[in-house]
């Protein structure tokens, strides 16, 4: 059936694209790791700067030292946050891309829904999942990617320089998104035969 072939082609293309996008996501997050580490480091230095007692002996010779150092540290942190925001833009592109794949597939399905019929759509075989399953998986991946992106956006938006503890914990919060990889890998494992089929 024409509609069936169309639908399967569309799904195949979508999953291939989604696979590439999630690999890109992984790369971007890995590259951002060094910046997150630097930010945590600087936050620790800022905390120490704040907590140094003003009566310390050497500070008497350098009255403006604390405020100067604070300025420099904040300047560095601003630079790093700028880089992380650019990273966030790239992640947003990935999220949008995955979303586009999902909506295209859904549109294709809805266009041909009458022709396909529910039995065809839900038919599974040993080597091929059903189209309904695949659409559901696309939806899952889209949702997971979107959630992770929003999480990271929230983390960056709520950073304040006064709360250095929060920044120091940024690293653990940032890397919590590791389970995106396992979700996608699990789904792709089901699709192995389907994608290899020409």
């Amino acid at each position, binding site marked *: 059936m024409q509609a069936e072939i169309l639908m399967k082609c569309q799904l195949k293309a979508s999953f291939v694209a989604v696979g590439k996008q999630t690999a890109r996501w992984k790369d971007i997050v890995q590259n951002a790791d060094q910046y997150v580490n630097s930010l945590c480091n600087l936050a620790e*230095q800022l905390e120490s700067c704040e907590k140094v007692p003003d009566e310390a*002996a050497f500070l008497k*010779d*350098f009255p403006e030292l604390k405020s100067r*150092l604070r*300025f420099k*540290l904040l*300047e560095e942190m601003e630079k790093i946050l700028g880089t992380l925001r650019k990273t966030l833009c790239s992640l947003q592109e990935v999220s949008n891309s995955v979303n586009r794949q999902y909506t295209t597939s859904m549109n294709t399905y809805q266009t041909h829904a009458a022709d396909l019929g529910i039995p065809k759509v839900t038919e599974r075989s040993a080597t091929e999942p059903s189209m309904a399953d695949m659409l559901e998986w696309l939806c899952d991946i889209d949702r997971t990617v979107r959630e992770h992106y929003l999480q990271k956006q929230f983390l960056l938006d709520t950073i304040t320089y006064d709360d250095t503890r929060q920044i120091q914990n940024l690293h653990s919060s940032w890397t919590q998104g590791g389970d995106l990889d396992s979700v996608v890998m699990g789904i792709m494992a089901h699709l192995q035969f389907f994608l290899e089929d020409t």
Partner: protein
Amino acid sequence: MSESSTGKGSGKRRKSSGTPRKSDSSSPSPAKSPSVNYAKLSPGAKRVRDVAADWHNLIQRWEVLNSSGASLTNKIVNCKLTNIESKAAAEVTVEKTSAAASTAAAGGTGGAPDASGMSEELGGLCNQLTDTYTAMAKLVEKMEKLTSNLKGQWELQQYQSDKDDSEPSILFQTWPIQHFYEVSAELSEMYIKELKLKLAISENIAHLSDRHTMMFLTSSWLHQPYIDARSGLLLESMLIETGHR
């Protein structure tokens, strides 16, 4: 440390070269300078051009020393923190095993083999830090010489223009020599203050025990609070004016 002079035709051998180092590929050699024809410069202008190049080289060398000093301060602080932690751990163990024993004595003997090894390492690191500081002090000395060189040239020009009743001449594009001197003096000032700070850090860092204070000193060394962002602007504008960029 000394480099041979470039073919300037002045016949003088200088310790530091008159052009920025070849490792800096972004600055053109004198012959290719876009806005300044080196051969047509007056001797005074040539001297000022050399001063600008020397400033660039000195600052590059300072940055290298700063990085090595920063890693040394990190190591010293880590050394001290491990020392403190191991002493604290030894004391805790002693308290647990015998309630009657005096913690000071037992903690001391328990930690003594570690402590002597640690303090040797610490001593070595501190010596290296002092050496780094000494090298930086030499750089600052050279920076001050550059400034006084420019001051001398400015005063000479003033004297000459007083005699001739003429306007102060522009050496390159827009700057009179007074401006070169002012820029150089401002840069020297920053580096002198920074050097004072580094002396204080190198003297105090090994004698502290508070974690925050140690981290404060380490980050003060690394981030150079007395070298403003303006220093980059001043150096670049001096290099652009003299045709090095």
